[in-house]
C-alpha cells in the first residue's frame, strides 16, 4: 500500500492504481467522459485533469491514466483545474451543442455560451464505442478513421461492417447517444455502421435472436448435445 495526499487528505492506495481510481475509492468526485472502468483508460477528453505538484511546479495530469505514486500531492479542484475543465467543456460545447450530457457538463462547470462554433456533432470522439467493440466484444467492427478535426468513428468504407454482430454495446456505452439503434419487428439496425440484422427463432427454445453466422454454428453444435 502507498500513501498520497489528495485535496489535503492523506489517503492509502494499492500500488498500480490510477489517481482517478484512488479518488473514487475515497468518494472524491472527478468528472470524466472517455473513462469506463471496464476498459483500458484512454486519456483523451482531458476532463479528469488534476493538479500534481512536481519539482518544476504544478502540472495538470489526466487522473484516469496517471499512476498514484507514493508521496504525491494532488489537488482535484484547484483554480488551475477548474480553469482547464471549463475550457475543455466550452470546446466540447462548441462542437456538440445539442448533446444533453455536454450541455449539462458545461453548465455545471460555468460555461454559458461557446465563443466559437465548431460544428454540431453529438459524437465527441471519446472512443468508448471503438474500445468496447475491441476490448470486450472483440468484434473490432468499427474504428477511428481520418485524422485531426475530421476524425470520426466509422465502419470500414463507411458502408458496413461484416464484423458487427449487433450486440449494441457501442450504443450502450456512448455518453452522448450519438449512435442510433433501431429495433423494429425483429429487425435490428445500427445505421451508422450499415448493420442490419434479421432476428431468427431459435430451434431449441423458440426465442428470437440475432444470427451472425458464427452464432448459427454455435446453435448447431448446441443442438448436438443435451442442453
Amino acid at each position, binding site marked *: 500500500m502507498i500513501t498520497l495526499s489528495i485535496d489535503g487528505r492523506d489517503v492509502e492506495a494499492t500500488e498500480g492504481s490510477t489517481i482517478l481510481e484512488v479518488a473514487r475509492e475515497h468518494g472524491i468526485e472527478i468528472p470524466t467522459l472517455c473513462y469506463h472502468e471496464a476498459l483500458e483508460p484512454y486519456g483523451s477528453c482531458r476532463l479528469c485533469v488534476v493538479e500534481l505538484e512536481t519539482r518544476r511546479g504544478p502540472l495538470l495530469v489526466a487522473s484516469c491514466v496517471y499512476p498514484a505514486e507514493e508521496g504525491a500531492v494532488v489537488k482535484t479542484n484547484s483554480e488551475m483545474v477548474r480553469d482547464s475543465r471549463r475550457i475543455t467543456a466550452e470546446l466540447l460545447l462548441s462542437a456538440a451543442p445539442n448533446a444533453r450530457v455536454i450541455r449539462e457538463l458545461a453548465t455545471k462547470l460555468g460555461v454559458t455560451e461557446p465563443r466559437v462554433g465548431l460544428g454540431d456533432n453529438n459524437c465527441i470522439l471519446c472512443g468508448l464505442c471503438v474500445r468496447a467493440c475491441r476490448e470486450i466484444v472483440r468484434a*473490432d*467492427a*468499427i*474504428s*477511428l*478513421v*481520418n*485524422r485531426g478535426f475530421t476524425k470520426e468513428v*466509422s*465502419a*470500414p*468504407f463507411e458502408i*458496413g*461492417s*461484416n*464484423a458487427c454482430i449487433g450486440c449494441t454495446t457501442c450504443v450502450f456505452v456512448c455518453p452522448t447517444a450519438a449512435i442510433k439503434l433501431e429495433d423494429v419487428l425483429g429487425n435490428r439496425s445500427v445505421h451508422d455502421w450499415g448493420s442490419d440484422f434479421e432476428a431468427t427463432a431459435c430451434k431449441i427454445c423458440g426465442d428470437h435472436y440475432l444470427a451472425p453466422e458464427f452464432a448459427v454454428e454455435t446453435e448447431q453444435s448446441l443442438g448436438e448435445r443435451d442442453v
Partner: protein
Amino acid sequence: MQSTFDASELDDLLNGRRDGGNGSLMDVLEEVQARYRYLPRDALILISESMGVPLSQTYGVATFYNAFSLEPKGRHVISVCTGTACMVRGARKVLERISERLGIQPGETTEDGQFTLETVNCLGACALGPVVVADGAYSGEMTSAKTDVLLRELLTEVETV
C-alpha cells in the same frame, strides 16, 4: 465483405506475412499504394484477411496517413512544398497558380485523371524554395512564370502520350 481482388496479384507481398507472420501491414500498404496509385478497397479486404488484421484497423490506418489514398491519384502528381521556408519565399503564389491553371484545389485530381495537386510540408530542400516536385522531379526557385513553363511541359507530355 467479399473481395473481388485477384489474390495472385498480391502474392509476392503477402507470402510470409499471412496470419500474423513476420511483416508489417504498413509496408504492404505502401507497396500497394505505389503499384496501383491508391489502395483499392478489395485489396484492403484481402490484405486484412490474409494478415489476420481486423479490417477496421487496416481502414483506420489507410485513412490516417497522408501517404495512402483511397481514391486513385492522377498519372502525374504535382507536390508544392508549403514548408515555412518555401512559404516565406512565395510558395503560396505558386500553389495558387497551379491550382488555377489545372482547375483543382490541393488534394484533388483533374477529371481526366491526369493530374493530382498536393501540398507537402517540407522536403528539406529549403535553399531552393519555393520547391515543386512533379512526378518525382524537383524544380526549385519557382515563380508564377516558371510554374507556367512547368505546366506547359507537363501538359505537352500528356498530349503527346
